[in-house]
């Protein structure tokens, strides 16, 4: 059983980096091209998840548990961020009757 677990993973580390980079950049593109604030939030979640996967892969690679503890903190932070952010979106919707982020240009010079 022990040797089974030891030999479980043989994927090169740079393939994990590549996957994380691609998913992160998809999140960046989502933030740039969408106008719906909720979809922008989902893109931010995608970016956070890409970082989480990379931290876990490096943590397993180095045999150090600190990386996985950091993933735990990132998840707690993401939960707080989503709760506050969605409350802000609800408040914006109550004032402007839309979740379009292009309406919120009052601070633009």
């Amino acid at each position, binding site marked *: 059983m*022990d040797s*089974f*677990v030891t030999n*479980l*993973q*043989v*994927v*090169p*580390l*740079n*393939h994990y*980096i590549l*996957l994380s*980079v691609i*998913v992160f*950049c*998809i*999140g*960046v*593109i*989502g933030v*740039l*091209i*969408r*106008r*719906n604030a*909720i*979809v922008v939030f*989902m*893109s931010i*979640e*995608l970016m956070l*998840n890409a970082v*989480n*996967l990379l931290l*876990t*892969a490096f*943590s*397993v*690679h180095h*045999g150090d*548990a*600190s990386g*996985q*503890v950091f993933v*735990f*903190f990132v*998840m*707690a*932070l*993401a*939960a*707080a961020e989503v*709760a*506050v952010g969605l*409350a*802000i*979106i609800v*408040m914006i919707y109550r004032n402007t009757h839309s979740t*379009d982020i292009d309406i919120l240009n009052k601070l633009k010079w």
Partner: protein
Amino acid sequence: MSAFLGAFILIINMSIFYLVAFLSIVFSLLVIFSKNPVHSVLYLIITFFTFTVHYILLNAQFLAIVNFIVYMGAIMVLFLFVIMLLNLNRDTEPMHSLVIKIIGIIAGGCLALTLIGALKATLSYKVPVVVTKSDLGLVKNLGKVLFNEFLLPFELSSVLLLSAMVGAILLAKKESNAIN
């Protein structure tokens, strides 16, 4: 016989990684390109599920369970509730103009290109990810690290979650005595 079995498991596992990685990319593309926000949320759930499979492949069992419960449970319910509350279940969402979309895709592609180029410059990471410590991602080991080295950040994150909860309730509450 056992060596043959080991090689077989190895090949199966590698192909699982590449299949799941492909699915992650496809569904995260669908998240940002689908017109309906409800469809985006549903594709996001599938993306998070593929990430859970990645954690299981890395033998990070605690993170797999937490990802499953927190992301696929709590956060997705929040998103779906807000979309339901705001009645955004329609396809007539205002979209950016095509020029801004193309510029955004080019900008994201440039970022990807830069990061991949930086990765190509470091040739030392061709080594495979081998699970050297089989109990690394288990609750027992992670709990020991969390409550010894990271006790203060852990307590601070509990304060953060409490203040986020209070802030969310304050923000989303209807103002009964609104300012005229």
